[in-house]
């Protein structure tokens, strides 16, 4: 009988405890309509988190997701409203633009040897600047209902954006588990040198994970536009904190090599219900920020703790 693996499954205990606490404090929390609401609200952040999981698994970080969300949203809306493109063409181009942002970050990290933190911090500034340039600082509204559909509509009582998040997660889970590329992602994060020895194109893996993060952020930006029926140039500021917190709460190590999409999904739900619960409990939005910051730090501290235990040569399963 193996001992309970806290690193892997602890997040489920946290989620259960959070739900129990919220259900106890406010009976509305577990209403199906509220659950659907939480998932709809978390979809934008969650979609980014799915892509971010790839980056963090390689031991990297992507701080630019908030700005990329704004850029792809603004570009998509602009193409739809000002250039008159049909919604699907605008979507494809906007997602590609997100992917390009990620690709550039990845190339900076791999070929430019820029630390991921710095490369994506620069991208965070640059993508925000591009958004402001494109929109001249004004919201873009008037996107077609088809363009907005995925962001706000519900299908069978469940938000469409939630379906999209789940689809992304399934695709990501599948990629990580059943493809050579997925193995490469874990290998690069676990031991870059051994990955190179194993003949893995570590550079290609690194660049690709940032591109994936850009693509999911691009998709998230479009969901965001649909949700608000307009593209806001300042949207997504600070989003990267929630996204990284979801991934780390899900048990993915900031050191790379350890983690899973299943964990990230749990992390997204924790962040989503935390957000929702704090609001239902009518806690001031300023204090909410402080609480989220504390949760984030807590998750990182736990990660360091597990890492430390590993360094002392104890099995994680023994914890």
């Amino acid at each position, binding site marked *: 009988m193996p001992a309970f693996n806290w690193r892997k499954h602890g997040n489920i205990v946290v989620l259960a405890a959070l739900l129990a606490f919220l259900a106890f404090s406010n009976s509305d929390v577990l209403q199906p309509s509220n659950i659907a609401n939480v998932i709809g609200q978390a979809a934008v952040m969650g979609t980014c988190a799915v892509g971010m999981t790839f980056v963090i698994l390689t031991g990297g970080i992507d701080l630019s997701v908030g700005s990329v969300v704004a850029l792809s949203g603004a570009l998509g809306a602009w193409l739809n409203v000002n250039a008159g493109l049909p919604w699907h063409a605008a979507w494809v181009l906007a997602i590609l633009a997100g992917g390009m942002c990620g690709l550039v970050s990845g190339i900076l990290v791999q070929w430019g040897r820029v630390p991921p933190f710095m490369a994506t911090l620069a991208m965070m500034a640059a993508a925000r600047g591009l958004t402001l340039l494109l929109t001249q600082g004004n919201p873009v509204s008037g996107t077609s209902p088809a363009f907005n559909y995925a962001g706000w509509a519900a299908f069978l009582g469940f938000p469409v954006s939630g379906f999209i998040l789940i689809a992304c997660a399934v695709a990501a889970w599948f990629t990580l588990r*059943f*493809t050579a590329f997925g193995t490469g992602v874990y*290998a690069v994060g*676990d031991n870059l040198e051994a990955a*190179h020895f194993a003949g893995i194109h570590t550079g290609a893996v690194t660049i690709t994970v940032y591109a994936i993060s850009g693509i999911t952020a691009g998709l998230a930006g479009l969901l965001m536009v649909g949700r608000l029926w307009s593209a806001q140039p300042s949207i997504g500021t600070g989003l990267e904190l929630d996204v990284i917190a979801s991934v780390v709460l899900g048990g993915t190590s900031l050191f790379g090599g350890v983690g899973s999409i299943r964990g990230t999904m749990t992390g997204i739900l924790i962040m989503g219900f935390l957000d929702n619960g704090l609001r239902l409990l009518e806690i001031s939005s300023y204090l909410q920020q402080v609480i989220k910051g504390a949760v984030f730090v807590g998750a990182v501290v736990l990660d360091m703790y597990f890492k430390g235990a590993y360094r002392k040569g104890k099995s994680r*399963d023994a914890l």
Partner: protein
Amino acid sequence: MKELLGVKGIHKYFPGVHALDDIAFSVGTGEVHALVGENGAGKSTLIKILSGIHRPDAGEIRLDGNRVEWKSPKNALEAGIAVIHQELSLAPHLTVAENIFLGREPRKGPFLDRPTMYKEAQHILDRVHASFDAGRETGTLTTGEQQLAEIAKALSLNVRILAMDEPTSSLSSQETETLFSLIGELREQGVGIIYISHRLEEVFRIADTVSVLRDGTYAGGGPITDFSEEDIVRLMVGRSVENLFPREAPQPGGVALEVDGLSRQGVLEDISFKVLEGEILGFSGLVGSGRSNVARCLFGLEPFQKGHIRIMGENASIERPADALDLGLFLVPEDRKLQGLFLNRSVESNATVLQLVRHLLGRFLVNRKRQRNEAERLTSELNVRFASLDQQVNNLSGGNQQKVAIAKGLSVTPKILILDEPTRGIDVGAKAEIHHLMNRLTREGMAIIMISSELPEILGMSDRIVVMRQGRMTATFSSAEATSEKIMLAAAGGGNNARL
């Protein structure tokens, strides 16, 4: 000889393992007590209990005949028990003096008293005959020098019992000599020394007493003079190992690999050799002689300016490891933890990672069932011992880790296998198994290049031996004509610039 530190009836359990089972052990003043056993036998666990890192689940610890209980390593340290671990734990950017007095710097009022600190550090360094001074940045020292610094640190604590875990594993023979004479001096001064080593010749040279552990139990021990090397090996493995280097007569086939005039600016010069199918070519030479660089060039990890590589008669262009793998060449690297394995990942994923990334377990998608079967086949062929295929390789013993690193390479059935230090730091049993495996692989027609720092291994397992010095080949011997003297001479100086 008065007993300094002793334990009795020690038991220690880890999840799923009875790591120590009723162990008694003691060390007296001026005694060098060797602790030997295969990896995973419990030596390190015992040391950790003696030094307060682990607490025993049952049993007693005595210091000077009085029962004691360590609540933390600090307790043990204050009582004069210091451990020098295999991985040295000095801060590389601090000076030697700062490391020696880390956390208990001499002070004048609220300020550090640097002059006193350096003076005292220098005094201790002189005691261990260190050739470097206390102001040196620690990271610039060689491993051997850093070890002296560690010993100096222990002495500054008025150490009474010094435990050393595999102290010579990364030392040159010169540094080893220095260490041994230092151990002799400490013994004169009445320090009790616990010496863990795989190298039996060292144990016989310096130990007064020996204790052998096997699978967490006490297998035997006593005054070293009562034992022969064979006795100890038998106690360690629980059976007798008749022949440690059982190289069978080779049946060489065609040329598998041909290297012609390989040169890398400042590192390698004009390296030319051939390896036949079914042959083991040994590479000997001192650390830094360029042995590993040859392997790294062949595997596409280092570029080279001149020279040709032919594999199975075809010109080969190898720019990265993936190219080498395509051509059927695999390198099991020297440092299995840093280069060979994904420590956080399971036995299964490590064993099959090459098949996976080379799309051998399905063109686009991974066939999980096939992966499982392959992992089972590979690990059972190499007799890897583990609790489950899902276990992290981090939790395996060194020998089993090495077997996984080799299994990984064999999974893609290479024609040429380069083994860089295949048995470094692993126990006698696993070593013999790896040697038997090499026999089997060459019988099946594989060409093997073995790089090793251990002369007995080179002499015992190679069919031909290449000796390198300062980036050049200085001699080539057949196994019949090679002797350790000839090899040392060619490696360290002299030699007849023999050619293949």
